[in-house]
């Protein structure tokens, strides 16, 4: 930790001139006498205060202007994390835990005062001692990013990392991931690593693991139990089923979506029950059959990011679509209304896009249900314009799939064929 984290201008000068740094134990004479430890300061704060953790544990901001004297105590207690290390137990299955960041690996960040994903995979493992009784877990950090900062190049990095373990003695791989974009990552892994021989499980949490009520531990335990008990090939998302701590849901990685901003049970399988429900000592199976529709593992770890997801709405300006076309995009996934529609005002632009050989796919902003473009005349118009209905594929999944398909195939007929082919349970009956 830097010695003056967050201090700037006058407050930084004040610390320096008094020869104190963050972590020092001090006695400050102001309107009263305060004893405590100098704490880091958040960015975006003013530079008129210093932050002190009083002996009672409370943090307070003291106005520099009022401080008469600062005394440094001899015994300084540096803020050093004590780290736990877990010894493996013979005979237990092995699991690889890859951390990418997210709330699940978060604790306080003194830069902003909010939480940040800085726990290492080892710390995460050590903070849930129950895991060591179920499996021997090797932990690695890939990166420490929140969901919104996870980019397609991160998907590639995760997929490449996992690909290294095609032939390993791991029973499964757990990926700690931010929840907001977890289903994009799970989709990409599903397509790019189709047929991977051991389960890949993405786990996140809605409450950071630095709090007693965190859902992180139970989600991790659920994922570990799932891998060691059921062990089916596939890519899954494991999160709380609802607000209670006793049931964990395991969703298919291409049929899942985050449907609430903050609840523990935010993740839902669209159009069905979660594939597996992990309760205290049993796993209920709602999904039988194969996740991957191909038997052999055939990694295709490539993608093309020139695919846009267009949510149509009343008043959508067709010029926006023209812009996308002009920017050289190779695929457009529409999130149409109802059964899969966009307004007449769009037709000209759609024609233009088609003329450029861009892949055009239709999904529905209803999220649940199937697009059906033959029911109304507008749907038929759109079919004639060359928009491909993508059945009941979730819009975000269709976007990721199009990136992957276009990144790996070049013939437009083939692109269309694979887009409609069920690769990793992204289409369901």
């Amino acid at each position, binding site marked *: 930790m830097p010695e003056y984290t967050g201090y700037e201008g006058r407050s930084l000068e004040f610390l320096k001139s008094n020869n104190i740094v963050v972590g020092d134990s001090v006695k400050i004479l102001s309107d009263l006498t305060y004893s405590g430890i100098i704490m880091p300061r958040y960015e975006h704060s003013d530079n008129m205060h210093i932050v002190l953790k009083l002996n009672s544990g409370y943090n*307070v901001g003291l106005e520099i202007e009022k401080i008469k004297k600062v005394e440094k105590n001899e015994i300084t207690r540096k803020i050093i994390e004590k780290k736990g290390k877990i010894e493996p137990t013979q005979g237990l299955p092995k699991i690889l835990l890859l951390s990418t960041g997210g709330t699940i690996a978060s604790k306080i960040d003194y830069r902003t005062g909010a939480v940040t994903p800085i726990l290492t995979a080892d710390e995460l493992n050590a903070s849930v001692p129950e895991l060591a009784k179920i499996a021997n877990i090797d932990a690695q950090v890939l990166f420490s990013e929140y969901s919104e900062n996870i980019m397609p190049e991160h998907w590639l990095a995760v997929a490449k990392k996992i690909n290294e373990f095609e032939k390993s003695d791991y029973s499964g791989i757990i990926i700690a991931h931010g929840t907001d974009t977890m289903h994009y990552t799970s989709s990409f892994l599903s397509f790019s690593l189709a047929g991977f021989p051991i389960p890949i499980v993405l786990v996140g949490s809605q409450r950071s693991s630095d709090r007693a009520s965190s859902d992180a531990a139970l989600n991790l335990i659920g994922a570990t139990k799932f891998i060691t008990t059921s062990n089916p090939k596939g890519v899954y998302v494991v999160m709380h089923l609802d607000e209670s701590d006793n049931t964990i849901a395991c969703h298919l990685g291409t049929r899942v979506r985050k449907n609430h901003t903050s609840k523990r049970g935010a993740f839902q399988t669209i159009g069905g029950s979660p594939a597996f429900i992990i309760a205290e000592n049993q796993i209920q199976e709602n999904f039988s059959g194969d996740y991957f529709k191909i038997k052999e593992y055939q990694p295709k770890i490539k993608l093309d990011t020139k695919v846009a997801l267009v949510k149509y709405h009343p008043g959508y300006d067709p010029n926006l679509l023209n812009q996308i076309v002009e920017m050289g995009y190779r695929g457009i996934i529409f999130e149409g209304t109802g059964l899969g529609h966009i307004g007449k005002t769009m037709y000209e632009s759609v024609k233009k896009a088609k003329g450029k050989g861009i892949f055009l796919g239709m999904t529905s902003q209803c999220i649940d249900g199937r697009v059906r473009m033959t029911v109304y005349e507008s749907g038929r118009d759109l079919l004639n314009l060359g928009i491909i209905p993508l059945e009941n594929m979730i819009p975000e999944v269709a976007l990721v799939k199009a990136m992957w398909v276009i990144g790996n195939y070049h013939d437009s007929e083939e692109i269309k064929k694979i887009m409609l082919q069920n690769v990793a349970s992204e289409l369901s009956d």
Partner: protein
Amino acid sequence: MSEFSINDVGIKVGLEIHQQLATNKKLFCGCTPIETEEYSIKFQRKLRAAKSELGEYDPAALFEKSKSKSILYFANPESSCLVEQDEEPPHELDVDAKRISLIIASALKSKIFSEIYPMRKTVVDGSNTTGFQRTMLISQGGYLEVDGSKIGIQSICLEEDAAKILGDEGSVRKFGLERLGVPLVEIATEPFEANPKHIKKIALALGRILRSTKKVKRGLGSIRQDVNVSIKDGGGVVIEVKGVQQLEQLEKVVEYEAKRQHGLLKISKKLQGIEWSHNKNEDRKITTEQFKKCKSKIIQNAIKKNQEIVTIVFKNMRGMFGYSPYEGIRLGKEVAELIRFFGLGGVFHSDELPNYGIELNDIENLKEFLKIKNNAAFLILAVPFEMIDIIVDQIISRIYHIRNDGIPIDTRLATQDGETKFLRPRPGAARMYPETDIPPIIISKNELELAQKNIPKSWDESIKELQSIYEINLQLAEQIFDSKYIELFENIIKNTNVNPTFVASILCSTITNLERSGLDSSLLKNDEIRKTFEILEQKKIAKESIEIIFKNIMAGKSDNVEDAMNKMSIETVDETDLEKIIQKIVDENEQLVKNQKERSIGPLMGIAMKELRGKVSGETVNKLLLKNIQKKL
């Protein structure tokens, strides 16, 4: 055993007052706290101890975790939302609660911080869904004056109230969420030397300052006081005693706690003279087999429940568990409290045996089986197998602590009979973690000035003012001010012409008397009280009817005034009807009137009131009777 004298131990006491604020909103969401027994939402959680900001675990949190209860929450959507369920981040700090806490801090001349950091205080007993209580230190320093001497203020915090415990069921603890998140102001005084009698007075004075703001809740459960007790030779150990319900209890609790602490020091000294240490492998043994035939009901029940009977041997400790430096203070009791805390009942120590169905031959067998020497002591306890090490470790470390360091640093709970019992280890600074969901709160110069301007009048001034505005006597003014009805009282007087002394005495003594007779004043809502006085003002009921109406409502027989009036056949009589009734009575008793003249009013009053009680005041009936009697003469 020696006699304990409170004056010899140099007792110091600090008070902590927790007062709910009357904002009608919660501290970090817009929910209204409503008492309820209907819960449509139910969910189950487990809490885990998390590391503090400094990378340490809090001892209290670890201890709670070792009890490993699973928690069931019950919620009503009217009084809680996703925030209380810990399913949504907190909203912004309620401005009213902030404003009131600044006024209170200013009234106590406390130094308010210009940058306040909301913190998470770890609480993993389940009383907070988050596993922590949100709390912020508003100010430090300041004082209040009681009888001319200054009592220092240590700190003033603004925090969330906890969930309401609904009960335990096996290893499941149940909570209701309606109270969770209600704003509380916590005021802690500096430790002061005072005899236990003065403590009550200081607590009362603090409560009165709070009530002077008229922004705090009143009534049962809206104010709670904890007391910190230390003694001169206690090595700086301060014991926090929670849950003192009534001020009357304070005095006894302080005295008991001082006695316990001084007694523990004596026990400690004696322990230091004994050569004892605990060997994990030799000194704790499962001896369930040896007790299979024991006649003790407690032991047999425990064996039935599949618990193990564990014996812990203490070399050279014979007599130590039963040693009682003061009445009711023993090492044996300290251990028993700890066991009970884990929800277990059975613990016996060798100094009290044979007894409780454990017979001499049980003891002889045990001693032979474990080769216990005569000068050793032992504890026999019933524990579920998986908890043996956790519990035995707790017992051993507590005894080590008493021997090596004296008084263990506990948080304790006041009991009904004025003693204290072990609640949990005292939490340390490691239990505090910054609340990362809420940015620091800045207190502007404007807000400080506003708070200064709004400092309420002192209690004495408020009482004087009440007396002069409403022309009520001192006692009534004090009573109404301390009661939960002060605002209602002022409201009723403002909106009706009913005599203030009458209103105050109904609110203070009539309702209190009904309460003492076992009725429930919480059933009587303020709106109904207000309505009753309006009906009285319209002369639709007599003064005497009020008690009858309130009694009916407080007994749960009716829930509003109209209903109660119906049930008790209280009707209104209009003036012409009344005239007729009185005239009729006088006519029917013409002979009596002629004979006794004006004195006939006595018996006639009886006859008239039989018919008119509760409908018309006696005064009116009397006047009318007299008028009619005189007409007849």
